[in-house]
C-alpha cells in the first residue's frame, strides 16, 4: 500500500533500534524471527479457515489438535528456560487469543507441582506432567466465591482411619467454576479446599485430585464435571465446573512443601505465611506484559489502518485525507501507543523486582514482599482496565470495520478484558493496595 510505504519512509529514526529496546535486545528479536519461521515451516500449524469462522466445538477441536502439536515441537522451537518469554510468544503464534486444552497445564499446574510439593511428591508427579501422561488444571474459584479465598466452601476433611482426605462440595455455590481446560480436557486438578483435621479448620490448602479415568476419560465416581458454556472470548478453551460428592483422595495428595498433615492428623504450620505471595507477583507481571501486548496489537492495527484509510476531501480536487491526519484521531490512537510502552516497561521492572525478592526469600527475608505484592496487584488492576479501554478506543478509531471480526478487535478486546476480573477482580485488588498504603 503506497500510503504505508510513504509513512515508513518518512520516519526519522531506526525502527530496528527502537524494536530492540522494546523487546530487550537484538538477540530477542532474532529469536522471535526464528520461532516465527519454525512455526510457519510446519504444515501442522497451517491456518486454513480463520478461527472466527468456526463453531465452538470446531474451535475446541482445532485448538486441542494444535496444542498437541505445539507441545510436541516445543523443545525444538523454544528455549525451555524462557517459558514465559519465548514460550508465550510461541503459543501466541499457534493458538492466537483462544487458548486450548493444555493452557493451564503449563501455566498453573506444572508450576504448582514444581513449587508446592515435597521431594517425594515431585518424584511422583513431575514426570507425568512433563510427558503429558496426565493433563492438569488449577481449580480455585467457586461459583459463590472468587477473590476472597478465605471463604471458599469446598472442604477437605482428613480421616486418620483411612489416611485419606474427603473432598466435598457442601452446596451448589461450592462448585469450582471457571478453571481453564477443566470442563472436558483435564484428568487432574489442583483443588483449593478448606482443610479440616483433628476437628479444626485451617483455611484453604492445595490438593491434587484425579477427576477423570486415565483409560476412558470418563469422570470418576463422586465427581461431576463439565464445560461452563460460551463466554465473551477465549472460546477454544473448555472452562469448567466441578463438584465433589464425598470424594476420597490419599493423604499424600495434599501438596505439603509448606503446610503438612501427619498420618495421625496433626497439622504443621508453614514457616512463613507470606510465601504464597511470591508466585502471585510473578503471575501478575506476566499478565501485565500480556495485557500490554494486546494494546500494542490494537494500536498497531489502528495506526496502520488510519494511514491506509482516507476520508473527507478537505480541499476539493486534492483527494481524500488520510484519517491519521485528523487531530481527534491522533488523540484516540497515540496515547494508546504510549500506554503500551508504560505498561510493558513496568511489567519488566516488576518481574526483575520479583527475581530480586525471590533471592531474598530464600534467606527467609520477606521484607519487600508486601510492597511488591501490593504494587503488582495495583498494576494489574490499572493496566487491565486501561488496556481494555484503550483497545476500545482503537476499535472506534477504525470506524465500522472495527466492529467486524476481520479487524481482530473483538477477539483482542474479549481476551484482554478478561484480565479485569481474573487473578483478582480489579476493585478488590485496588482495595488491597489501599489497605497496604494505609498501613504504610
Amino acid at each position, binding site marked *: 500500500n503506497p500510503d504505508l510505504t510513504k509513512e515508513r519512509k518518512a520516519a526519522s529514526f531506526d525502527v530496528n533500534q527502537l524494536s530492540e529496546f522494546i523487546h530487550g535486545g537484538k538477540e530477542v528479536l532474532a529469536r522471535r524471527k526464528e520461532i516465527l519461521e519454525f512455526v510457519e515451516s510446519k504444515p501442522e500449524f497451517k491456518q486454513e479457515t480463520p478461527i472466527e*469462522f468456526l463453531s465452538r466445538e470446531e474451535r475446541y477441536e482445532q485448538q486441542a489438535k494444535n496444542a498437541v502439536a505445539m507441545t510436541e515441537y516445543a523443545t525444538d522451537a523454544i528455549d525451555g528456560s524462557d517459558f514465559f518469554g519465548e514460550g508465550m510468544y510461541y503459543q501466541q503464534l499457534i493458538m492466537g487469543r483462544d487458548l486450548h486444552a493444555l493452557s493451564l497445564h503449563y501455566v498453573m499446574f506444572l508450576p504448582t507441582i514444581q513449587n508446592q510439593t515435597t521431594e517425594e511428591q515431585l518424584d511422583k508427579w513431575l514426570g507425568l506432567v512433563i510427558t503429558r501422561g496426565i493433563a492438569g488444571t488449577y481449580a480455585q474459584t467457586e461459583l459463590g466465591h472468587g477473590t476472597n479465598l478465605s471463604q471458599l466452601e469446598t472442604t477437605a476433611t482428613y480421616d486418620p482411619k483411612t489416611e485419606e482426605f474427603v473432598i466435598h462440595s457442601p452446596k451448589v455455590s461450592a462448585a469450582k467454576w471457571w478453571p481453564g481446560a477443566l470442563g472436558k480436557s483435564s484428568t487432574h486438578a489442583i483443588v483449593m479446599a478448606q482443610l479440616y483435621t483433628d476437628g479444626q479448620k485451617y483455611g484453604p490448602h492445595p490438593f491434587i485430585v484425579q477427576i477423570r479415568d486415565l483409560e476412558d476419560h470418563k469422570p470418576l465416581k463422586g465427581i461431576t464435571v463439565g464445560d461452563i458454556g460460551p463466554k465473551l472470548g477465549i472460546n477454544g478453551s473448555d472452562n469448567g465446573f466441578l463438584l465433589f460428592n464425598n470424594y476420597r483422595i490419599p493423604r499424600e495428595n495434599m501438596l505439603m512443601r509448606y503446610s503438612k498433615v501427619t498420618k495421625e492428623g496433626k497439622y504443621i504450620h508453614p514457616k512463613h505465611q507470606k510465601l504464597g505471595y511470591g508466585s502471585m507477583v510473578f503471575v501478575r507481571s506476566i499478565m501485565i506484559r500480556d495485557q500490554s501486548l494486546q494494546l500494542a496489537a490494537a494500536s498497531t492495527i489502528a495506526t496502520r489502518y488510519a494511514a491506509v484509510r482516507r476520508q473527507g476531501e478537505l480541499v476539493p480536487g486534492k483527494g481524500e485525507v488520510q484519517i491519521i491526519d485528523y487531530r481527534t484521531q491522533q488523540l484516540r490512537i497515540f496515547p494508546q501507543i504510549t500506554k503500551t510502552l508504560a505498561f510493558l516497561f513496568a511489567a519488566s521492572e516488576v518481574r526483575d523486582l520479583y527475581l530480586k525478592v525471590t533471592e531474598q526469600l530464600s534467606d527467609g527475608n520477606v521484607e519487600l514482599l508486601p510492597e511488591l505484592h501490593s*504494587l503488582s496487584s495495583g498494576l494489574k488492576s490499572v493496566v487491565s482496565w486501561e488496556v481494555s479501554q484503550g483497545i476500545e478506543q482503537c476499535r472506534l478509531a477504525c470506524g465500522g470495520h472495527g466492529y467486524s471480526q476481520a479487524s481482530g478487535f473483538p477477539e483482542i478486546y474479549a481476551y484482554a478484558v478478561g484480565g479485569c476480573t481474573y487473578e483478582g477482580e480489579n476493585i478488590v485488588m485496588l482495595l488491597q493496595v489501599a489497605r497496604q498504603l494505609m498501613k504504610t
Partner: protein
Amino acid sequence: VAKIKSGNAKLAQIDGYLKAFNVNRSSFNGLTGLTPQILIQDFEQVARIQVFGVYSRLAELKRTLPEHEAFNKISIDLCRASRWHVKAYLVKNFFAYISRCSGAERVKQLLVEIASLYALDQISAGLAHFLRNQYYSQSQADQVKMSIETLLERLRPEAVAIVDAFDFSDRELHSVLGRRDGNVYENLLKWAQQSQLNKSDVLDAYHKHLGPMMKE
C-alpha cells in the same frame, strides 16, 4: 502516616515518595524546559495528597465506627488513592526505564516524547486532581492541552514506524485491517467470502422461511 509525620518511617523505594514534602505549586511550564522530574513530582504530589487525605478521613471515621465499616465507607476514595499510587509508579518507571536506552539519540528523544505524552494525557484525564488547592493554575492546565497537541503533531510522522517496532507478524496480529502490507480492502473481501453463509448462493433458511413468506 503517623510515623512519616514524625519523621521515623522507613519505607521501601516503591512507597518512598510518601515521605517527601508537599510542594505548593507545580513547576510545569509547557514543553520548553520540561524534565521527567517535573512530571514525576506532579504525579507523586497528587498520589501523596490522595493517600494522606484518605488516611485522615479513615482515622476520623474510625473514632466512631468499626474499622471494616469505616474502610467500606471511604472505599471509593481508597481505590482512587491506589490508582494514583500506581500511576505515579508507572510514570516514574517509564522515564527511569527509557533512560537506560543505549540506542541513537533520536530514538532516546522519541522515547522521551512518548513518555511525556503518556504523562500529559494522564494529567489531562485527571486534571481536577492537579487543579486542587491551585497546585496547577488554569494557565498550566491550558499548557497541558497545548503540549499534548504539540506532541501529537510531532509523533504523527513517526506513528507507523513506532508500531512497526512492536514487531508483530501478520500471523501474530491476526487482523485484516492491521496487515503489514496495508492491502486492506481486497483482503476484507477475501475474508468475508470464507463466511459459512457464503457456502451456497441460496440458503436453506430461504427455502424454509423467507421464500414461502414472499410467495404467500
